[in-house]
């Protein structure tokens, strides 16, 4: 027998029913089931079961997130060194990035898991692996400049109010990671408004000349007529290529549209993320962006004129649509309503981004808003579906 398995068999005893640590069995179970496949067997008439469990389901999302997370670490270090005028070689950049990002990730996981375990022990539930995803999504949508205590406060709110008060993963109606982010956004706007999102690691006087630290979105939103938003961004040093690949300041993991697309393809191929949500979101954003272009005149906001490709490459659009909007729990339940849901997110997100200067980016609010409307979309689609069937009632 595997020595590790033997060790776990030994460790299990105090957690058994009637033993002193019985209450903390969920803790043990989480560790054990993380390492080993389950020993549970079927009870119902369906005697054999598929190999897909929620653990596999969630780890697929983690795999899809990995490129964005790794690039996030690199880019955070890169932006920091760039602004501080330090060397740009790979090792030192990654080290700096890891120094800034890893504490945020660790705090997110540690604090979030604490609440998760607490609720599981009280309820006597097994620990739900959904948090492994939330715990990584959340740091990736935070700016690198965020103070760690705010990370902790945010994830606490996200886990408790966004999820646990409703009964835990599967029973929440809002995306917990976005709930946590929105809480920070409205509670500590000074730290998270998108003005300066580069972690500066040198003293202020050593910052390179011309560094403003403003994100592309902040510049585009602040441009006033008759200036051109695209030119304003270009003169601040942004170009389409960098925006798409992600070498720009922004939230840790969301700057790279390219890697978000890679993750999205992985989710679609494995069938874990809904392609209808993603396609809907893409089409929604495209059509809204084109509508803005169509209605752009010299008296409208200059942001209206911004080219489609720029709109799609900048900010958190790709990341939000791929990883946030596809959260199955807070999405509508029906595949066909997921397309409508995605489309509306695409449109709304673009409206908030372009028209409302108070919010630097629209996806967080658009997705949360559509989370709330998800059951309504389901309801409407369901009524149509019912009409297609031959009724079978008593």
């Amino acid at each position, binding site marked *: 027998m595997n020595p590790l398995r033997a060790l776990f068999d030994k460790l299990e005893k105090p957690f058994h029913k009637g033993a002193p640590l019985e209450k903390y069995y969920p803790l043990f179970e989480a560790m054990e089931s993380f390492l080993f496949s389950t020993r549970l*067997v079927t009870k119902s008439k369906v005697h054999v079961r*598929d190999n897909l469990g*929620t653990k596999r389901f969630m780890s697929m999302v983690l795999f899809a997130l990995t490129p964005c997370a790794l690039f996030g670490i690199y880019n955070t270090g890169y932006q920091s060194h760039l602004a501080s005028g330090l060397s740009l070689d790979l090792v030192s950049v990654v080290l700096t990035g890891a120094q800034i990002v890893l504490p945020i990730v660790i705090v997110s996981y540690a604090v979030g898991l604490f609440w998760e375990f607490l609720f599981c022990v009280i309820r006597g539930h097994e620990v739900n692996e959904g948090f492994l995803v939330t715990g990584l999504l959340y740091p990736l949508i935070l700016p690198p400049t965020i103070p760690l205590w705010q990370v902790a406060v945010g994830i606490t709110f996200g886990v408790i109010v966004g999820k646990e008060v409703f009964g835990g993963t599967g029973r929440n109606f809002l995306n917990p990671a976005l709930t946590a982010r929105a809480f920070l956004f409205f509670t500590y706007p000074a730290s998270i408004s998108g003005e300066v999102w580069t972690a500066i690691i040198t003293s202020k006087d050593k910052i390179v000349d011309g560094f403003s630290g403003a994100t592309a979105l902040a510049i585009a939103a602040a441009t006033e007529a008759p200036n051109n938003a695209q030119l304003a961004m270009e003169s601040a040093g942004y170009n389409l290529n960098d925006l798409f690949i992600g070498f720009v300041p922004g939230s840790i993991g969301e700057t790279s549209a390219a890697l978000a697309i890679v993750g999205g393809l992985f989710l679609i191929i494995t069938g874990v993320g809904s392609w209808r949500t993603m396609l809907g979101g893409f089409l929604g954003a495209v059509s809204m962006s084109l509508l803005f272009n169509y209605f752009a005149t010299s008296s409208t906001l200059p942001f209206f004129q911004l080219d489609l490709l720029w709109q799609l490459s900048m900010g958190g659009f790709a990341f939000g649509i791929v990883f946030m909007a596809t959260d199955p729990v807070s999405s509508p339940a029906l595949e066909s309503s997921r397309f409508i849901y995605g489309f509306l997110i695409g449109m709304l997100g673009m409206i908030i981004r372009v028209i409302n200067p108070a919010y630097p980016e629209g996806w967080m609010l658009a997705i949360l808003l559509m989370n709330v409307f998800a059951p309504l979309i389901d309801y409407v689609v369901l009524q149509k579906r019912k009409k297609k069937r031959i009724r079978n009632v008593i």
Partner: protein
Amino acid sequence: MKKIRVKNTYDLRLTGVPSRTIRESSLGKTLSVLPTSISLIKPKLSVKEGASVKTGTPLFYDKRDENIKFLSPGTGTVKEIVYGPRRCVDEVIIELSGKESFEPFKKISTAGLKKLKQEDVASAIQEGGLWGVFTEHPFRSIPRSTTVAPAIYVTVDNDEPFLPQSAVYLKDREEDFKFGLAILEALSDKVYVGVSSQNENIKTALGASVTHELEGHYPANNASVFLYYNKESESENKSWSIKGQDVLRLAELFKEGKYPVQRLIVVAGDHAKKPSHVLAREGMSVADLAGKAPNEPTRYIAGGVLTGRQITEKGILGFNDYAIHLIREGKETDMLTFFKPGFDKPTFGRTYMSSLFNSSLFKMNTSLNGGYRACVSCGECPKACPTELLPQLLMKELKANDTEEALDQGFLDCAGCGLCTYVCPSKIDLDTVFDDAREKLYWEVEK
């Protein structure tokens, strides 16, 4: 011949496939009849302990309708009647005597059948103890003796792993089958016969008797699925169905004038010694039919692996059982499975590499392959529902006692195939939720 393409089916590709050879089995000292294994009836005994019975003597009947009778599968004396909680009759044990004698029933020929009225045919079947082979939809109960079927659906093939194959039980018995269909035609105006589209031989053998071709993997040949795709109006919801092998038994009852006790079952699964077809009789024990399992944890199942009931090694073949499965209970624990590519892990979706690169059969076991979780609306179950329902929503509605909404969405179309439960990553026993709700509804309607 109409072709029906069944949506959302799945081929489980499991090992332990029964071979096409037919093995004889020998009777033990006793036979047991299990009234509780027949769902949706209220059994009332018509024999007492010590009574001597012939093969075909009524043992019990449905309290609400005494024409629905269940007959003794053997000759001997009633040795013991085992009562369960609240005095429900769990088991009637018959000690077999050496010589078998049959209760005589009226013989009816093809010509004789034509002269009979619908109710005469029905009462001949009821006398012969085979009324229970009919299933009335949507509750899948045994129909009342006076009801007339709007339509009867005959399913010739079985694609659940594993049930007797038509190629085996129908071999050289096509004429009997056609006579059986004639009996059904005397009962109802519409008789539909569906065969699997992969089954070319049977299609030619049965010729014009076949009305529908069913295309798809499991459960394309399920009667409820067949009904769902074929019905055109609400009035057909209460159609009946019958299994192909029971059509043969009907024919046998009419031709021979005695209770047909023989049936072909399969003994299958990895832990069965030689998975094959077995000639069996209701009431035989697993020990008589399957022998001993290897010295490993084994689960015994009466019926298919997606709809059967769990029994022990002393279990009994019930009235509706056409298979005995012996499969591995649980599995060896495996490390960090959910980070591995999983070439050897069968799956419905595309989260393991087996979905791309493995076309071999997969070993059966009863592992849950995950922990119990709340529904995360992952959307797998609607993709596995042959009757185009939304199992995740139905489950939530039924758990919240909103039966009206569930009915409105078509809950009664549910075929009970168990695929939604099979694919659920949160390991929710959807089948139990649906079965309980359907049974509760039935008793509310029928009292």
